[in-house]
């Protein structure tokens, strides 16, 4: 029941003190026709409505009432909040508020949005705390202490016939554990004091991370869509470059141009490909590999054919920031492409058969190392799971540029990881897989497999773009991988002792440490100091 558009035009015109005749002339219609529109006896839309909005200097959404409608929806949402929904609102209160006090309505909507964001950010922090290794270690100490105290106290309370020696032992145990707990509590407090100083807001990357963790890197709706799309493409020929080019052409009228100058003129963008929607043309650089061409065309096909499915997924994900939404849309497009290029069940079967040998899988699907590694992460279909993997990509400067989480393993979102990780070692032996069994300070052990990948440069004299891609899996699953062959997985003696990043790492004796931990142990020295401490000088200085 929104206020009819004619009245809005009329009100706006009158408030600007423009006559009906003058406005009619400005927008190129007769005054009598404008009169009919203003009395809601004729519909108005399209180019005419745009001209009217332009000359009345007003947003078209305000004229059509869409802005109001959106505000009303926002308010409905706010009023549905459990803590206010039982208040005795008038039946039409929201609508009246929007109509009569639009600014207050907006204030309410904004406050509600800020509130939801704050709640989300608190949740994100809770998640973050759970995956903080130092905190995990301290909590473990707390739980051990509490367990010992509780158990000993129960014995003292409930066992009537304890002898003196036994009684003494359990009392001593309670005393010892309580003193330990006191020390742990002081450590914890120190940790929070440090952590609160470096508080950050929920970043886009973290939002997407939450989404991926929640869905365990697996999107059933996209898998179903991809399966259907692959068959559609196969109707135009064998799945691959030719089939995709033909399907894009016949189904969407999209032309694929490979090589030469982009259709928009010399490239003013980085990257090897681009879609020009206004020209319905997909351009790929001449130096792109077949794997890139196949994957990017599949991605374009997916985004064109299954846009609404991506929209639904995004709506369900309820991402907060526009940046997160943009990145998530991109990620889901790539997911679709991966699911098309590597059909789930067949790919899983081949992966299991080859011991997750990425180079073998590449050959089967004409795909790149990174594309295969990426797809392996998504093999989480309930009842048909592959080995659970986490995924990281780094540029040669060590910056992390892509990330798929593995529950239990703390992979940094951005910035740098631990310098000891294979993801960096791989740069020293390009194109060769590097494997590594690592142990974190909480005792958890993982197999890391990393390898460099290279994007083709446009011309021979341009530097190639290098990156390193790493898969991580719990060492308990590692015996299924070809990459663990010859390793004694049960023997932790040769583990590389690592952390997540220096800031979150508790190892005090690590030669690779570059930054102080967030919560240094009490009394520990700072990282970089002079050899001779302040106040210690030889000779008769005073």
């Amino acid at each position, binding site marked *: 029941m929104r206020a009819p558009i004619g009245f809005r035009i009329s009100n706006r015109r009158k408030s600007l003190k423009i006559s009906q005749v003058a406005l009619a002339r400005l927008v190129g219609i007769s005054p009598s026709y404008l009169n009919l529109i203003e009395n809601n006896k004729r519909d108005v839309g399209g180019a005419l409505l745009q001209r009217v909005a332009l000359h009345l200097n007003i947003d078209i959404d305000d004229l059509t009432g869409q802005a109001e409608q959106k505000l009303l929806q926002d308010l409905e949402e706010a009023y549905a909040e459990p803590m206010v929904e039982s208040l005795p609102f008038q039946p039409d209160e929201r609508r009246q508020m929007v109509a009569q006090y639009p600014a207050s309505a907006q204030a309410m909507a904004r406050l509600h949005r800020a509130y939801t964001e704050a709640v989300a950010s608190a949740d994100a922090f809770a998640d973050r705390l759970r995956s903080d290794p130092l905190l995990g270690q301290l909590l473990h100490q707390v739980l051990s202490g509490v367990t010992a105290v509780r158990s000993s106290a129960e014995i003292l309370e409930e066992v009537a016939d304890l002898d003196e020696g036994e009684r003494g*032992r359990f009392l001593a145990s309670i005393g010892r554990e309580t003193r330990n707990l006191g020390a742990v509590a002081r450590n914890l407090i120190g940790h929070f004091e440090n952590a609160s100083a470096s508080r950050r807001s929920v970043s886009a990357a973290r939002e997407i991370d939450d989404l991926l963790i929640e869905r365990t890197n697996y999107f059933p709706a996209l898998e179903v869509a991809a399966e259907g799309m692959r068959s559609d493409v196969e109707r135009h020929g064998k799945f691959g470059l030719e089939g995709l080019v033909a399907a894009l052409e016949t189904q969407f009228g999209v032309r694929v141009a490979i090589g030469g100058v982009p259709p928009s003129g010399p490239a003013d963008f980085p990257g090897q490909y681009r879609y020009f929607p206004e020209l319905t043309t997909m351009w790929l650089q001449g130096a792109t590999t077949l794997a890139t061409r196949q994957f990017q065309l599949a991605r374009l096909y997916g985004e064109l054919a299954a846009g609404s499915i991506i929209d639904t997924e995004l709506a369900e994900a309820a991402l907060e920031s526009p940046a997160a939404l943009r990145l998530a849309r991109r990620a889901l497009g790539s997911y679709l492409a991966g699911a098309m290029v590597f059909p789930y069940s067949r790919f899983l079967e081949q992966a299991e058969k080859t011991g997750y040998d990425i180079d073998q899988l590449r050959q089967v699907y004409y795909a790149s190392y990174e594309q295969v590694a990426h797809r392996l992460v998504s093999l989480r279909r309930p009842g048909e799971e592959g080995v659970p993997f986490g995924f990281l990509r780094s540029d040669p400067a060590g910056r992390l540029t892509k990330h798929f989480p593995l529950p*239990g393993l703390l992979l940094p979102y951005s910035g740098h990881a631990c310098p000891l990780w294979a993801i960096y070692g791989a740069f020293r032996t390009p194109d060769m897989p590097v494997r590594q069994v690592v142990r974190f300070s909480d005792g958890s052990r993982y197999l890391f497999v990393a390898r460099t990948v290279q994007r083709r440069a446009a011309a021979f004299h341009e530097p190639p773009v290098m990156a390193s891609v790493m898969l991580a899996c719990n060492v308990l699953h590692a015996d299924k991988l070809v990459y663990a062959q010859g390793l004694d997985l049960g023997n932790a003696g040769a583990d590389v002792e690592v952390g997540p990043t220096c800031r979150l790492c508790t190892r005090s004796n690590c030669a690779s440490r570059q930054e102080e931990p967030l919560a240094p142990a009490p009394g520990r020295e700072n990282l970089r100091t002079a050899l001779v401490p302040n106040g210690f000088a030889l000779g008769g200085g005073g």
Partner: protein
Amino acid sequence: MGGTLAFDILIAEDEPSILESLDFILRRAGWSVESVTDGEAVLERVRRELPRILVLDVMLPKRSGFDVLKQLRSEELTRVLPVLILTAKGQQQDRRIAEELGADGFVTKPYSNAEVVGAVRQLLGDNDRAA
């Protein structure tokens, strides 16, 4: 000679205070108890003599409880040995991994003594023993 059930319970726990009280309450419940304090010792001990049940802490030095469990499940002699895992509250991931690796039961720290005794009794099927 392997395969004989020489004693009832083997406890693998590295925290001395917890081990002391566990040892006490399980003995008091009428079982014979032995203990080890690291992962490798568990494997050595069960290969020599098989207990009726293993009470296994997840966080052990040398070899983790998971590692021990995985190894036990891969050996003929210990494939069906009942294993009760001690996990810490809030560590859902630990519990999931232990389940995947074939643990028979769980007790979450901090526990009450009665919980441990109950869980052991259930796995042993000893309903007739006095607490």
